[in-house]
């Protein structure tokens, strides 16, 4: 079969992926399509790409997106200022424009000798139009540099992993070309496993009561920023260090609330309606 011999991702030793996520990765590897991973912060989206690269022994490139990032930044940058500088001070022969072309992460992934993994991290940070500007390059896996009259074509289609915190909706035209995976917030049972990986000797009662309280707090819709996995882990760490009695945990008596809730309004809200601390 034509798709035989395609690498298969199974997760790596330092990254535990859910079977469903592994499936998504393998589908996108098989279809040679970018994989869009969407989910709340702290669900391990960025780690995934690294883990794929590591376990399949593929070169790894990271393109971190900021609000000012333009699609062209991923391709190349013509350093005209350097060229001007060189011309003025006769440092180098300036006739070869190629030496002033600096490649972006997307271009580097195209040019890689081995099939590479490219992480486009937090694509939603950029302008709404940004993903559409990448459509052509991701479809064709090639682009043209007018300055040097060169076309850069991917030797192997890189495996593109795109993460999004859903601050902005991604355009449909873009999503159609991708495999989509949504990481739901871990439920009680999975969260229990996650906490146990971090704190293998946690007292059972403390763990269960803390988790129950954590999910109770997450259910309060009025909170501006709901606590996520990283806040939970911090909170449990503090509870363990202070040898807190798990029996005493309740929303009325919420210890170390500042570790769980990072916004003052949220603390005020809990104080007003639920707790007395």
């Amino acid at each position, binding site marked *: 079969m*034509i798709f035989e011999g395609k690498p298969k991702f199974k997760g790596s030793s330092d990254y535990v992926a859910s079977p469903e996520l592994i499936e998504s990765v393998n*589908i996108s590897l098989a279809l040679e399509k970018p994989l869009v991973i*969407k989910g709340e912060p702290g669900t391990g989206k960025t780690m995934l790409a690294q883990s794929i690269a590591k376990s399949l022994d593929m070169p790894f490139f990271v393109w971190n997106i900021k609000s000012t990032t333009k699609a062209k930044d991923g391709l190349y940058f013509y350093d005209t200022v350097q060229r001007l500088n060189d011309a003025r001070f006769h440092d180098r022969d300036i006739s070869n424009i190629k030496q002033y072309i600096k490649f972006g992460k997307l271009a580097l992934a195209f040019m890689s000798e081995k099939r590479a993994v490219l992480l486009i991290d937090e694509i939603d940070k950029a302008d709404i139009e940004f993903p559409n500007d990448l459509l052509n390059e991701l479809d064709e896996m090639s682009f043209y540099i007018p300055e040097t009259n060169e076309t850069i074509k991917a030797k192997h289609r890189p495996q593109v992993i795109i993460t999004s915190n*859903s601050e902005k909706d991604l355009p449909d035209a873009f999503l159609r070309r991708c495999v*989509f995976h*949504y990481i*739901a917030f871990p439920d009680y049972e999975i969260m229990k496993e996650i906490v146990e990986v971090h704190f293998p000797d946690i007292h059972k009662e403390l763990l269960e009561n803390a988790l129950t309280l954590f999910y109770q707090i997450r259910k309060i819709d009025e909170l501006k920023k709901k606590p996520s996995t990283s806040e939970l882990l911090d909170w449990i760490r503090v509870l363990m260090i202070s040898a807190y009695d798990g029996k005493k945990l309740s929303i009325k008596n919420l210890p170390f609330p500042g570790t769980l809730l990072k916004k003052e309004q949220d603390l005020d809200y809990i104080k007003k309606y639920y707790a007395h601390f």
Partner: protein
Amino acid sequence: MTILSFFYLLRQYGIKVTTKEWLDLYKLLAIGEIKNLDDLYFKGKKVLVKSEKLYDIYDKAYLDFVTAGGDLNERLEEILSFMEEGLKSNESIFFEKLGIDEILNRLTERLLNQKDRHSGGGRHIGQKGYSPFGNAGAKRDGVRIGGDSHHNAAFMVATQRKFKNLREDVFLDARNIGIALKKLRNFQNVGREEEVDIDATITKTAENFGEIEIVFTKERKNNVKLLLLIDNGGSMEIHQDRVEKLFSIAKGLNYFKEFKHYYFHNCLYDFVYEDMENERKIPTERLFKDFNAEWKVILIGDALMSPYELHNSWQMIYRYEKKGKTGIEWLRLLKNYFRSSVWLNPISYIQWQHQTVMAIGKIFPMFPLTVSGIEEAIKQLLKQ
């Protein structure tokens, strides 16, 4: 019941699966990634559904599909064997040579033929009585497809409908409203060309080998001016949370060229108020002087009142004097003055059959106060 009907079912439910995406599913079939109904559910979701907001609808469509009758596993086997045959006979060039459209055509043809052939036999897989919205009384308890454990996991997951809360029509969170409101934009280059474009200047100068060439540009700004008129009458109290949310987000976005808001009580009468306590009042007339017709107006209110309150003036209602404009006149005036205006209603759609809601809905395009409602309203505002 063929696999193709799943495609149409999804589209019917509002998941706009494109042919290209559907072919991704076939590719998965061809490479052996889809072997049973579980695979179809889980892997189909990844290539066909591109937003978690649609997951719940997908679950519903899938449930409808598998419970609509016929032996699906058998059907799936047929598709798989067809794929295998194709791959065997043509090996690796199967996809490249035939082209995707041709594969789709052949598959469809084959499935259609099969359907005819079966029609005489005992395993007729008809679409009789089948309706995605299930009012025909067909019992879909999943027993009919039973006897096979393959689809159970998918069936369980789909029945749980875990993603219900993510659905667009019920989900009104701050980020979503923000995204929706941001679509209310009209970027324009404003002012004269007086801003120095530093990047372009450097590039130009460098390209000129040091001959300085300064490039000017205009500033690009969202040119939309938004006027929010909010009903804070008694019956609106239960919706206060949602209205407040929308208001604080619109204000906090800092996205519009200008943003103003006023409150009104029940219906628009002679005065609007700057504060929620209805203390600092401003004649409604002033709106037409202070704001030009370019302003986009969003009114938020339940539009629920007694007909008397809509068809009488403020003076008549509160002072028993026969003068002044009636509520509905003020609303019409507002509608005619501003080029684009919409009404967002927080009450559920079922209650819209109310007399005054319908009367106001005839004046302003009315949308529910949900994320998708806001999106629709904004589309309308940009159209007008």
